[in-house]
């Protein structure tokens, strides 16, 4: 059976489009939430039990909804934002809401790894809370943050496969519609191989960057 390279190439571009755009917005959301989750917790620099008490369960709720369901649940919101609930761009909205909270937990973990002594030193120097986040927490957690984003990106590639449910396209969609539903094993194989290669490359870049920023010679 022939594998249509046009379809594959198109799917690759769709996947890259969905992953990059939703990663961009998801990372902004995730960083913001992750930082808030860290600094507002008990005993931290901007302790605030109200903010923490609201954000924390909201993140949990989004984390507990399976993506395929979130995709459907968010249709009204998607329609509001992009004007339609179908298509590649439309898939980005639920992807952001899926990956944002996920990234926030990863960011939270990374930031919590930073030694309390660093924060203490920052406070002793008279750093403002914003300076502590900018100049101490983030730089110190940076290598770990890079790995977090790497993990999130790979998770995102997996999630885009489900975007086919709302006509999002992409490699996962091709694998299902052409391969699985039409018994075109070759197409399935090719798309799966491409996905594997993608994941390998991203993980490799992540490790390389992490290693670079870890400053280990």
């Amino acid at each position: 059976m022939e594998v249509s390279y046009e379809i594959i190439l198109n799917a690759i571009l769709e996947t890259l489009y969905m992953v990059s755009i939703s990663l961009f917005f998801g990372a902004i959301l995730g960083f913001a939430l992750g930082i808030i989750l860290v600094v507002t917790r008990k005993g931290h620099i901007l302790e605030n039990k109200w903010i923490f008490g609201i954000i924390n369960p909201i993140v949990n709720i989004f984390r507990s909804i399976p993506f395929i369901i979130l995709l459907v649940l968010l249709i009204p919101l998607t329609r509001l934002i992009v004007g339609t609930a179908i298509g590649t761009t439309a898939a980005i909205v639920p992807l952001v809401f899926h990956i944002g909270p996920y990234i926030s937990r990863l960011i939270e973990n990374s930031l919590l790894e930073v030694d309390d002594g660093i924060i203490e030193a920052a406070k002793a120097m008279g750093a403002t809370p914003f300076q502590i986040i900018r100049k101490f927490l983030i730089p110190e957690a940076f290598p770990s943050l890079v790995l977090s984003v790497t993990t999130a990106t790979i998770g995102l590639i997996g999630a885009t496969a489900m975007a086919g449910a709302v006509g999002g396209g992409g490699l996962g969609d091709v694998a299902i519609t052409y391969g699985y539903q039409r018994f075109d094993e070759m197409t399935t194989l090719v798309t799966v191989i491409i996905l594997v290669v993608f994941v390998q490359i991203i993980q490799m870049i992540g490790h390389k960057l992490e290693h670079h920023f870890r400053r280990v010679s």
Partner: protein
Amino acid sequence: MDQINLKINKGDIFGVIGFSGAGKSTLLRTVNLLETPTSGKVLVDGVDLTTYSAQELREKKKEIGMIFQHFNLLNSKTVFENVAMPLLLSKVPKNEIRQRVMEVLRYIGLEDRSNAYIHQLSGGQKQRVGIARALVTNPKILLCDEPTSALDPQTTKSILNLLKKVNVEYNITILLITHEMEVIREICNKVAVMENGRVIETGNVLEIFSNPKEKTTKNFVQSVVRDEIPEFIIKMLQDDNPSKRIFKLKFIGENVGQSIVSEVAKKFKVDVNVLFGNIIELQEIPFGNLIIEIKGDHRECERAIQYIRLKDIQIEEVAANGSELRNYSQRNFGNLIYG
């Protein structure tokens, strides 16, 4: 912490010693309000820090440097960037930062490592960087949180020397906490002993070392000045001649201890043997004890002892069981230092 009242004067190297959990770390952190006291005042230069706004406090903290047991340096930054950090936070112009940082790095002897990352440094070098970072803003006060507890003895010595140098050359008041009496002996001029959140004893280092009152203080002092009677002397008393008279002299200051032995031997018809001695230096003053044997006619011995006592040297006779000492000195030894 409860009822702590300490006054630290400008130029002091004030040591706070205590076992872990004694509250010394909390005390130190109260001085720059990393810990806020529930009641009481923290006066720095006569102004109560607890009345400051968050903004004012941040400014004030720039006059109070701090170094830590585990250095708390940024692993993601170079030595230069670490030291520059306090200036960067105050938005000092770049060229000024460069100049000041290199100046401080030269002072601590690490200018050639300015581009190294923290993990490439030894423990001693890391603490030097910590000190440089604390000094870069020209503080008036330096808080030291167990600065040498993570370092080996030799490195400890070099860091303590550096702190002393900083104290003298920049006239920076140092408040230091430690659990090692050796650190206190090495550089402090004043000491406070803490236990269970209270200061149980405080004073001049010479005073505390020569005349500790509380049990904990005595234990700490003994970790540096070993003044228990050595085993062989107790054996000597028990086995040999029970009529042997052995004495322990405690002394401070030049000449006093050493010369008294020859003085007594000349003045009276007695033989004096030095059996054991332990002398340390406290603020450049010799301080320690000698164990001597006085041989001779009973009357002459008593006269010799009287003579020593009148010289204001604490003299105690060592009994055969080693523990019970007959104290010949009526006067409080602590007064000797100033009197």
